[in-house]
């Protein structure tokens, strides 16, 4: 169990790091997209490569951050029923869901998209539009993203089994799930009081 927990911590650390890195792509996307519009208007120039770059970047964000989002428990759930269960009950649901929901999907995409990537790479496919980008980097993002997601699923599984068997703490912070809003409220309150 200790060896597995070590592996889980390693996966968590990797996905956390990757999540922090790809977040910067959000800023890059914003600037690229705003730049596209401004340059088209002012210089009357438009480039398909730059337009495609926008969604290449966004694909990189959501595919590479898939594991990170799972790590942060940020995928939305419908918890009208499961919200009433105990921490152990919810952990059982997570174990069931990881094994039967997440893993089949993730592995299916990993397997199928790898084949597509190999095809795109060996045939040097380029996107249909004139001056478009080469396709294989975007195609490669898919298997890499689903690999990270699968790995994170495995890590979540380890943490939950460890919790149930008494080898580790409850991996999910329960109760205060809306920390971001609370923090915002705190800041506005401070600001308002500073003025008054």
């Amino acid at each position, binding site marked *: 169990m200790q060896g597995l927990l070590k592996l889980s911590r390693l996966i968590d650390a990797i996905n956390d790091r990757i*999540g922090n890195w*790809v*977040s910067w*792509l*959000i*800023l890059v*996307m*914003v600037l*690229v*997209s*705003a730049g*596209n*519009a401004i340059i*088209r*208007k002012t210089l009357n120039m438009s480039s398909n490569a730059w*337009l495609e770059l*926008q*969604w290449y970047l*966004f694909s990189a*964000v*959501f*595919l590479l*951050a*898939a594991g*990170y*989002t799972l790590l942060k428990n940020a*995928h*939305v*759930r*419908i*918890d009208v*029923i*499961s*919200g009433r269960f105990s921490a152990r009950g*919810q952990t059982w*649901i997570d174990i*069931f*869901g*990881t094994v039967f*929901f*997440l893993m*089949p*999907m993730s592995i*299916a*995409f990993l397997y*199928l*998209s790898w*084949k*597509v990537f190999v095809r795109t790479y060996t045939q040097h496919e380029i996107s249909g539009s004139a001056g478009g980008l080469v396709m294989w980097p*975007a195609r490669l993002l*898919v298997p890499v993203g689903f690999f990270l997601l699968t790995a994170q699923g495995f890590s979540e599984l380890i943490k939950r089994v460890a919790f149930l068997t008494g080898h580790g703490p409850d991996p999910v912070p329960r109760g205060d799930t809306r920390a*971001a*809003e609370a923090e*915002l*409220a705190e800041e*506005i309150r401070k*600001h*308002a009081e500073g*003025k*008054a």
Partner: protein
Amino acid sequence: MEFLTANIAPIMFAGLVVFLLLGYPVAFALAANGIFFGLVGIELGLLQPSLFQALPERLWGVMSNETLLAVPFFTFMGLILERSGMAEDLLDTIGQLFGSLRGGLAFAVIFVGALLAATTGVVAASVISMGLISLPIMLRYGYDRRLASGVIAASGTLAQIIPPSLVLIIMADQLGKSVGDMYAGAFIPGITLASLYVLYIVGVTIFKPAWVPALPPEARKLGEPNGSSGTPSFVVIFVLAVIAGALFDRFYYVPKYVDVPLDERLVIAAGAGAAFALAAAMVNRAFKLGLLSRLAEQVVFVLIPPLALIFLVLGTIFLGWATPTEGGAMGATGALVMALSRGRLSLKLTRQAMESTARLSTFVVFILIGARVFSLTFYGVNGHVWVEHLLTSLPGGQLGFLIVVNLLVFVLAFFLDYFELAFIVVPLLGPVAEKLGIDPIWFGVLLALNMQTSFMHPPFGFALFYLRSVAPSRDFMDKVTGKRTAPVTTAQIYWGAIPFVIIQLIMVSLLIAFPQMSLVYKTDLPKGDPDKAFEIPVEAPAAGNAADDIMKDLGGKNDDAGAEPATGKSAEEQAAEDLQKQFGGK
């Protein structure tokens, strides 16, 4: 076995409900449902064994969908904006402007709510700002607690329906229409809704004046030394700005650029008027002319940032400079610049905003990916035919369909958030609506309006929840008057929301009765110059992707769901092109 084969679509749908209610993340539950029933379908011989070969192309369709870029752009913009202090300044100043009127603070809340909604609405941020800035003032000067909390929650949710809102963007994408058209279709209903709120407050000032007292003179911080409120001065500058805008339009813009469409002229004239007001206020302040009251000057200064942002996210679309997606990016850039210039942008805040945006957009896109896996199987077993049959057999034709669908969405919105509704339910309803001759834009705006209600509905409504988290929940000492003030109880928040939920439902019925409110998009553009505002090459791939969602219904996808990826792709492209012609070239 026989039974299963004949009823696989309803069974699959029931299975989806069970999978979702289990409480595991929606995205994966959806996908798992698709995969599980896909395997069952293959086993029963209903589906080709190669069904899942289509998955990579489905994912590719999601990746290359440029409309989805709006999700990170507007989320990021909202996160930067909510920390920029713009909302607080607006509430402060506009509260002063209207404060001397009976019901003035309530009007100010509605006005600022609508204004924030038009920059980029984030319900949570609007409600929290109003709950922290306006609610204490309302309580201090004796507003009815139910009314005060109701008007704040309701005004915060305007973000959902007034463009640019993510709900409208996603709705346009899922219904295969252009985002610009969806914006145009939501404008009048959104403004009408805000006006209905105002009307309700006007009614309250007449029949229950004690609920909405005017602010006493000592509460007006921006008054003039001589005791005048400074409001007349603002009226003057406002009228002058309108005149300046009109003159600019009449004597410069129209003669210079012949044949400009009305929406473009409006945007330019508004810009000219705002520039005039800003110049006047700056000159007044710089040279201490004293021609404008402090209040008028301050109002002009606080209004400029939101107006500039509205220009960036909406104006540029109507001028044809940017796509709706790029409008989001421009707005986000503008928000960054504004937060930076106010000294509110730190590295920490930027990182937080980027990381939250990455998480939120990831979960949203994964719900869409899950929904696409689900629909691959569901359409494969002719689930859409089953849904269509179910809904077209409703009595009452169009009206019956709309009433049932609105009730359904109203109830579902208790459990599902709007991304889930938009990705799972809307693609099933859209084609049926179209078949019944219901305009997709009208339909989309109706659903968006309906989903907005779910934010306000006790006891689950998120807006109420956010308000509860910032409203005083026990006796507190008012800092200004030094009096002990009673808290706002949860019951008061719930009761306060009811009149506004009713107004909301009235608005839904009004829009059902008068579809013209949403159909202006068809007449808005002058005849000789169609699509000027929206025909930008970038829109093409977006339309193609949206088309992918509904093409199955048009017969493009149905049989080749299990075909080889290569051929599947070309069929997909073909169908997308066809639809593009249909939608793009209206």
